[in-house]
């Protein structure tokens, strides 16, 4: 069963409290830290009274526990079968894990049980030996906080060679691609892993060298007309973005959507996707870009008529 107390934040919090109690160093003041870390924001109202009040029979008010060993929960069948499921995903090869331990288990599902019908067709080559090598090098650099020297071809097919402080590895389910985001403030870069031609993990970097990328945020505001189920479609389509929706009169809504400035073309396409259900009202340069596309289309149509 998925929704079970054995996976609950409360059980995790109590296990952590007992672990600390067994060291002999648990004090009342530690409860807040542990519970806030493992459970929810209001759990302090519930866990301490029940736990040290003796109601749960695993600790008393003097913070003594009859539990003798550090709490350890074996893996459930669900957890093991989930791991087994991963073994059928080609992306698991990128992580170099030992699969022999999962023999004899049934996966929870098979890859063919899913159809990702609108995923792009030019995803990364997960079975390519060179790609796997580059991925693992990037992962090592991220794990061990080391610089990495990367040679890659940019979108204009120019070979770029540089030394980078890795920041995050980004995956897009739509693109089915990994990109390395590097540190470096406003000089931060995105490097498509598929475009890497060679890389080498270098020495560890100092914490002060980790300048998180500076992102330029943009916002677009559009009016939504709820025809043809547009409200539901738009709300779900853009639910991966930060947005705020206000209801106006009748079947109209105003949506403010935040995005990274470099993704403007993508957002423009996503807005046009909904046709006349969405009307951009700000900013002006975004409106101009929509109008330009419409004008280009009108020009092609006029030309076709003339021909």
């Amino acid at each position: 069963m998925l929704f079970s107390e054995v996976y609950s934040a409360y059980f995790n919090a109590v296990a952590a409290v007992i672990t600390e109690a067994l060291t002999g160093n648990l004090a009342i003041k530690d409860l807040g830290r542990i519970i806030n870390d493992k459970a929810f924001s209001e759990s302090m109202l519930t866990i301490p009274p029940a736990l040290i009040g003796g109601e749960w029979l695993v600790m008393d008010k003097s913070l003594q526990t009859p539990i003798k060993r550090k709490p350890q929960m074996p893996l459930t069948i669900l957890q093991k079968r989930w791991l087994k499921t991963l073994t059928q995903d080609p992306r698991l090869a990128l992580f170099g894990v030992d699969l022999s331990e999962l023999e004899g288990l049934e996966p929870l599902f098979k890859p063919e049980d899913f159809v990702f019908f609108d995923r792009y067709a030019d995803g990364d080559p997960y079975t390519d030996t060179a790609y796997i090598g580059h991925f693992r090098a990037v992962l090592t650099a991220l794990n061990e906080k080391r610089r990495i020297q990367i040679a890659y071809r940019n979108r204009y097919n120019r070979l770029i060679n540089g030394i980078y402080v890795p920041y995050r590895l980004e995956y897009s389910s739509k693109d089915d691609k990994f990109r390395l985001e590097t540190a470096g403030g406003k000089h931060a870069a995105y490097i498509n892993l598929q475009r890497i031609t060679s890389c080498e993990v270098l020495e560890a970097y100092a914490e002060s060298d980790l300048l998180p990328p500076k992102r330029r945020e943009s916002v677009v505001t559009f009016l939504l007309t709820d025809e043809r189920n547009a409200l539901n479609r738009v709300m779900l389509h853009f639910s991966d973005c930060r947005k705020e929706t206000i209801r106006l009169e009748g079947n109209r809504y105003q949506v403010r959507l935040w995005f990274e400035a470099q993704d403007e073309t993508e957002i423009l396409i996503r807005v046009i996707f909904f046709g006349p259900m969405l009307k951009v009202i700000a900013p002006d340069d975004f409106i101009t870009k929509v109008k330009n596309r419409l004008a280009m289309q009108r020009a092609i149509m006029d030309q076709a008529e003339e021909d």
Partner: protein
Amino acid sequence: MAYSELVKDYGRIRGYMRQFIAYGFRSRSEFGAKSARSYDNEKRRVESWLGESMSFRRDKDGKAVFLSVDSRRIPRNPLHKSWKAASFTRNDIALHFILLDILADGQPRTLAGLLESIDKEYLAAFENAEPIDISTLRKKLKEYVDIGLVAAVKQGKQYQYSLPIDAVHLAGWQNAIAFFSEENPLGVVGSFLLDKYETQRSDMFTFKHRYLLFALDTGVLLDLLTAIHAQRQVELEMAGSRNGDARRVATIPLRIFSSTQGGRQYLSAFNPLRKEIAFIRLDSIIQVKTLEHVPDYEACQKRLEEALPHIWGVSAGRYKLQHIEMLLSVDPKDRHIVGRLEREKRCGTVESLGGNRWRFSAEVYDARELLPWLRTFIGRIVSLSCSDKAVENQFWADFAALEAMYEEAMHGEAMYRGDGDVV
């Protein structure tokens, strides 16, 4: 009943969370809760679980609570926390820690042996602790054997209980679990596994185009996948009838269709009465009840396999093939547009016609499904033709409406006043 952060039934909170996250403009009076207190309690729970991810706004309709996050900037799905809020009884938590502690020494024990240890070694530490009932212990052991936390071996007339031998060592899996807990359709289970690591590594992955909401449907998804594997029919309890009453649908589940761009997941299923494939949104399924084994399950799957090359998204229309064709003019400096066509064409075909002309064409059961995608090429479309003229007409009517909207934008507000078609 006093407020609790925890809930017994996940379904109760699922609908509220979807409203907060996907919409975020509905206020208390619009939730249709049985009472104002129900709404207040659910809101308080969600705020407690999701903490700083929640925002609120007050307007003329009242206070609206919403989750507004850029899923790209949060390494872990905050909705996974909702799956860690199952309620429990005093006996559940006491027996969980005590049983696993007793069995941790590796020695198998009988039911009577366990009961004696619990009484003498654990409950004795508490004044006036009520003893654990043998039937309660038996029930808990059966539950733990079923989920794999305890192993039971029959020796003579009684069972010997012990901890299972765990062959899986999680140490080498941390990066993989961190990635797949966000990317696998049942990633919530990975999130449970991440909780087992004492040292949490700093998050190295981020995810673009990630739909956090899918996490809310994990329970329904797991039940459906289990039924698919067992080749069983299911009865679905569905939400969404106009009077608010749930309705029930018996069907044969086949595959899951997941959108990486639309934030929706669908079950493709064979309707045994109509003898056709149907697509059902996962977020509209309240509950899945597994029914009998389907003897000709493969034949149902074959129907879907045969239809797949002509399904653009999640509609098989009336199983009548429609031809759709779009001619594009692509300037050599804009070759990335051809790249777009190639990677986004799905079951369609892309051909160069020489010069700057490119043709996309497809034979599909429901050409109407292509309309939104075709619009994204506005600015380069030389011609569009479809064997269903209504599709063609709709496209150009939408284009004209767009033109009118933006032409009038300078002079006043023009907004779309469309028909009721569902696209």
